[in-house]
């Protein structure tokens, strides 16, 4: 029995959460430092996992398996394939930045306001989310996955509702009501999805007799486990609905703008860059592997919905007055791309989608965190309240621009690679949809540049004239992200090498081959 | 056919007994429900239980029959009566329904339930009928004992524990620790003085000594009854008899007679009208 590496990656932040929460209220900074430390150690572990992972090796590696609830064949099974390991790494990577960026978000309010904000709680919750997300990326037992898939809602709920953004045009009270509304909405949406999924999980157990992803997928592949077409479709829909809420896919998206708008920037990053990824990841891993036929059956509808998300999200982003909501809608558009790539069922599409998850995580984090720094300076989320920031805070503006360019997937930055792969992959099989989706890149340019122009350029507004530029801490947060964006944009090979085999596997699960080009290249 | 009948039939004596006592039992039950006073209900229930005890005996459950009489009719029902005495007859006794539609719903569902139950029993095919003759061969009590102390021993023990718990629970519920000693008369008097109102003792009940019951309020000079004259408990139970009207009528009658004798017009004392109104 070797050292349970995967468990460690999840347990460590959990311990960190407990430890952070246990720090006495007075020692606020100690708690912060502790949380940061734990997240960093987790990152280190994740890197170890990444190194230990052999792309050419078995499908699931570093596996652990213990019986848990023997009566129902529920096992504690962990294992990562290329996709999983990439996302685990992403999560572990982003959390330190989230913590660092949220360094002061949970400080007690200025003396005057009654409310006391439990700093320890804030960071403990973040670590808790990390633990659960990582576990749901690693779980290869459907039931186990479901548990963490649901459980992560609880800390998220408190993070959104309890520590939300205090900047609001109608003052503190409006902010708090908005906040609780957003939190409840987030919870309800995801709970509904989760319940439906629970039903499907039970149904799956009834049909398959156990929860082990590997076994079921295997049985599905070699035909030993036969499902009635209708059964498979219902189960698929049950799973997919939950993931589509999480992801979020149009028209189940409306919780995201509220949640991201009301939460503080780091929490918003947590939502969109980390938690939501579980949804798309699960589509790739569970929907396709467990229900290949149903997936193919549902593909046309899903693709259409995805395209709608892309265009719709982008258009709404253009129409927003609120910076964070704008980013949220942009994310919706991006998730549309991811889902498109997943269900295009070509190796480009799915590799692109996986890559997209990683890149979108980084780019949104960069953009959103900088936006958060901006908002924290001015205390307003309204785009109209800014203008000419570029002149007073050039570095802030520069990083913001880079984040924005990443969001509009400028070539040379990481998101371009994934977006183009998704588009090519989609186009190869569904040209029309591919072309419509391509409009997304124009719209992306539109909302990003409009945002940049309205906030950063033009004459300097008096309110922002005294705005300080990025501080050291903030630079420490942003710089690595940007470096990463550029690196992965120029040299994404390391990631693709990890991802490709897994994608190939998935495609073979659904019995799909890449379409052949008309004219074979004269090699 | 005949064999089957044989299988079902019991002695005519038992049949007679059943029909008579059964009627009694049902009537008793109905009375339990519909008697106004709790005491009466309790008594009717006791009657029903005794009838049931007899039925037990008739069914060959000798032990249970006796236990029924001893425990239920003897102990539990007495307990009930004690409590009834303790609590007394309350306003809750009135059969007047306060919740809208409650009664009708109750009767309806009750009726439906009964019908269904009886229908169910009728519908059920209860063919087998083996008397207890060989089950009670070694005596009913022995048979029970054999079962209780072997097969059902755990249940038995647990119920024992349950009983003890119940006893303790009852004690805990009802027992009230007296924190200070009961006030002596002296102290009560002093408190009265200190409070300042009703320095003299409360007025006695009963008017003109016509009524010697404690539940009759005394009348004030203008004929209106005074709450103070009856004990608090009675007041709270609403068991006060208001005799003011009767008293006034007597007074009127008296004066009537008086003026008949003296042939002179009665001078209506001004206060009378008011009191009549009050008494209406």
């Amino acid at each position, binding site marked *: 029995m070797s050292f349970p590496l995967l468990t460690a990656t999840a347990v460590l932040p959990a311990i960190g959460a407990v430890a952070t929460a246990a720090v006495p209220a007075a020692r606020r900074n100690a708690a912060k430092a502790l949380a940061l430390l734990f997240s960093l150690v987790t990152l280190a572990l994740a890197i170890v996992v990444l190194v230990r992972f052999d792309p050419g090796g078995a499908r699931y590696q570093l596996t652990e398996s213990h019986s848990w609830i023997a009566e129902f064949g529920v096992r504690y099974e962990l294992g990562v394939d290329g996709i999983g390991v990439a996302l685990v790494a992403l999560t572990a990577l982003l959390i330190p930045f989230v913590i660092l960026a949220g360094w002061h978000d949970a400080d007690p309010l200025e003396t005057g306001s009654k409310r006391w904000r439990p700093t320890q709680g804030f960071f403990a919750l973040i670590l808790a989310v990390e633990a659960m997300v990582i576990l749901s990326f690693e779980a290869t037992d459907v039931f186990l996955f479901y548990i963490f898939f649901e459980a992560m809602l609880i800390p998220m709920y408190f993070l959104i509702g309890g520590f939300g953004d205090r900047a609001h045009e109608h003052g503190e009270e409006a902010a708090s009501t908005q906040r609780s509304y957003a939190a409840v909405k987030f919870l309800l949406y995801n709970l509904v999805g989760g319940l439906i999924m629970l039903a499907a999980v039970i149904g799956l157990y009834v049909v398959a007799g156990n929860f082990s992803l590997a076994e079921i997928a295997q049985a599905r592949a070699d035909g030993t486990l036969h499902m009635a077409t209708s059964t498979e479709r219902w189960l698929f829909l049950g799973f997919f609905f939950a993931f589509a809420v999480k992801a979020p896919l149009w028209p189940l998206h409306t919780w995201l703008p509220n949640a991201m708008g009301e939460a503080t920037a780091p929490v918003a990053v947590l939502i969109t860059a980390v938690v939501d990824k579980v949804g798309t990841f699960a589509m790739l891993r569970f929907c396709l592997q467990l229900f290949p036929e149903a997936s193919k059956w549902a593909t046309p509808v899903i693709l259409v919905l995805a395209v709608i998300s892309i265009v719709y999200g982008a258009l709404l982003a253009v129409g927003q007055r609120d910076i964070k909501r704008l980013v949220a809608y942009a994310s919706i558009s991006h998730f549309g791309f991811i889902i498109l790539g997943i269900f295009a069922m070509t190796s*480009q599409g799915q590799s692109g989608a996986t890559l997209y998850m990683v890149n979108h995580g980084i780019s949104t984090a960069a953009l959103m965190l900088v936006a958060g720094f901006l908002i924290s300076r001015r205390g307003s989320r309204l785009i109209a309240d800014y203008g000419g920031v570029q002149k007073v805070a050039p570095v802030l503006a520069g990083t913001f621009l880079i984040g924005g360019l990443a969001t509009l997937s400028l*070539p040379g930055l990481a998101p*371009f690679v994934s977006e183009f792969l998704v588009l090519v992959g989609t186009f190869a099989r569904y040209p029309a949809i*591919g072309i419509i989706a391509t*409009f997304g890149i124009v719209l992306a340019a539109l909302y990003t540049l*409009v945002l940049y122009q309205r906030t950063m350029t033009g004459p300097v507004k008096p309110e922002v004239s005294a705005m300080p530029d990025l501080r050291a801490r903030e630079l420490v947060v942003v710089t690595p992200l940007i470096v990463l964006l550029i690196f992965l944009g120029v040299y994404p090979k390391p990631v693709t090498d990890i991802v490709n085999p897994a994608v190939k596997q998935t495609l073979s699960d659904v019995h799909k081959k890449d*379409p052949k080009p008309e004219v074979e290249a004269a090699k | 056919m005949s064999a089957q009948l044989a299988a079902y039939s019991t002695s005519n004596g038992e049949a007679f007994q059943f029909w008579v006592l059964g009627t009694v039992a049902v009537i008793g039950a109905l009375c339990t429900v519909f008697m106004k006073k709790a005491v009466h209900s309790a008594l009717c229930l006791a009657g029903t239980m005794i009838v049931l005890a007899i039925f037990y005996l008739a069914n060959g459950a000798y032990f249970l029959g006796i236990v029924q009489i001893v425990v239920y009719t003897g102990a539990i029902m007495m307990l009930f009566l004690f409590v009834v005495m303790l609590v007394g007859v309350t306003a809750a006794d009135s059969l007047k329904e306060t919740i809208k539609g409650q009664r009708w719903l109750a009767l309806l569902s009750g009726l439906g339930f009964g019908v269904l139950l009886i229908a169910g029993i009728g519908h059920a095919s209860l063919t087998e009928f083996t008397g207890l003759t060989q089950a009670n061969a070694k005596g009913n009590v022995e048979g029970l004992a054999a079962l209780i102390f072997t097969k059902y021993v755990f249940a038995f023990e647990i119920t024992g524990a349950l009983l003890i718990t119940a006893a303790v629970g009852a004690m805990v519920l009802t027992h009230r620790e007296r924190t200070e000693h009961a006030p002596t008369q002296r102290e009560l008097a002093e408190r009265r003085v200190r409070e300042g109102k009703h320095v003299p003792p409360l007025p006695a009940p009963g008017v003109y000594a016509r009524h010697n019951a404690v539940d009759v309020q005394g009348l004030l000079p203008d004929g209106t009854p005074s709450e103070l004259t009856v004990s608090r408990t009675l007041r709270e139970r609403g068991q006060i008899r208001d005799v003011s009207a009767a008293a006034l009528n007597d007074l009127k009658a008296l004066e009537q007679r008086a003026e008949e004798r003296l042939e002179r017009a009665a001078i209506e004392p001004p206060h009378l009208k008011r009191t009549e109104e009050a008494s209406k």
Partner: protein
Amino acid sequence: MENLIALLIAAPLLGAAVLLVGGRRLDAVGQWVGTLLSTVSFVLGLVLFGDLLGRSAEDRTLTQHLFSWIPVEGFQADVGFRLDQLSMTFVLLITGVGSLIHLYSVGYMEHDERRRRFFGYLNLFLAAMLLLVLADNYLLLYVGWEGVGLASYLLIGFWQHKPSAATAAKKAFLVNRVGDMGLSIAIMLMFTTFGTFAFGPLLGAEGQQGIAGDASEGKLTAIALMLLLAACGKSAQVPLQSWLGDAMEGPTPVSALIHAATMVTAGVYLIVRSAAIFNGAPDAQLVVTVVGAVTLLFGAIVGCAKDDIKKALAGSTMSQIGYMVLAAGLGPIGYVFAIMHLVTHGFFKAGLFLGAGSVMHGMNDEVDMRKYGGLRKYMPVTFVTFGLGYLAIIGFPGLSGFFSKDKIIEAAFAKGGAEGWILGGCALLGAAITAYYMTRVMLMTFFGEERWKNQPTRSPEAPSAEPAAAHHGEHAEPHPHESPKVMTIPMIVLAFGSVFAGGFFSIGDRFLHWLEPVTGHSEGDSPLSVAAVTGATMVCLVIGVGIAYAQYGRRPVPVVAPRGSLLTRAARRDLLQDDFNHVVLVRGGEHLTRSLVYVDHTLVDGVVNGTAASVGGLSGRLRRLQNGFARSYAVSMFGGAAVLVAATLLMRAV
């Protein structure tokens, strides 16, 4: 030798990185670092050029494969470079003109406190442009393509405090993005059709034939049209030309670099580079020629009406690019001449812009030609260089423009058939108009009475954007002066180019032989003799100049623009194209987004909240049942029991 190719790009890229990340400590030397690095790149280019010349015409293709960029199953994108005659030409043009403009900017941007960043952007632009022309596959080309877009965005919007500049920058980027969409779709099509988008296998290399021809004509046409869309975006061809005029908001060197010399020519490069594809799709080629012809006239007409000197030049740029696109659309007949005109145009248009910049520099950044006049004696060098550029562009015999443009016109006629006549006619007409508006610019700027005397050139409500004005007295009467050496030298060099390049290229068809291996060449059968065409061109030239002289040379030029004819007014507004965009796209888009926001809030969200509300209301009513009376609860319980019994009975019954 191949390894130098990467350095070509690396040098300016390094410069950009250093200057943009370097921070304030580089403010002092920033401009020189930038200039130095671009020059380094130019020198490298020369070295490579020498190397190429040393080889035989066939193996003048150097390739360098750096690393595998995006490997996913069949989709293999590498970072590799391909330097052949075509790229070489561009490399020299870009780095050469680029370096000159760097030098010029040192003087021009002298007083801008954000100069360091400006040079960073310039370097970034060069790097992107070089990547564009050196990439050995379309995806990498796409990177350069967008990189150029980014750089132009940054440069056009360099004076971000000016809302107009910021808007212009955004507009440029967006319009380009539309074009980029075309390019990306083209790449996807290539991938699905050929399974590759690398130049080597696709367009053929080292002699062996590419597979581009093997696809069905329909596919090829689709790809070609998408490429054309991309080209339209970058090269400001109708219908995507609208950004070019606004882009003049940027500092003048930017206009020179981006909008005259290099960036806008990227489209032409793309078409010529994809010759193999276009040759297989005659319909697409026809479209290309049409677009070229239309733009040619469009730009020329716009150029006639503008009073803003830079806008006028921008118009002329459009029309010149139109010439190139037209030529490129003609197929093997025209490719070479397209590139040739591109190069010569690079020289003289850059020269003209720099000249214009120098004029503005001396005139408190006044851009309205109606407030110029008689400047020749105040800024002689500018006058001479500008004049040479002018002669070159109108195709004065013996100068660059003459050779390159005539070749195109001949090729247009050589297309043969009705098309040939029409296209040729358009080209001729364009030549005439070019002559007209350039003469107009010339006259209004350097001749006539000095209209800038005794009148402030700047109204207070339009404060100067150009930092140069900061030290010149604001709103004061301008006192024109010659620009410093650092600015004039580049102009002189470019003037040389614009005078001799054409001749140098054409004599002995040097240029033709140089490019032929890449683009291929075929002499069309022209219905007119070369002499006839040249003659016709000369006639047009004379007519154009004549009219212009009659209008602006003889009569005094009114300081306030006359209302002008309908056409003139339309032309002043870029032939209403912007208005169209505004009404249809901008307004429409705004309405669309607004309504969508509303829909999202009321419909999509409303459904959810509605359900929640209704559930709440329902529970509110049900709540009444809970009257708290144990007995009524008991009733319901008892009723439930009854129901259960009933159910069981029924079950038994059936």
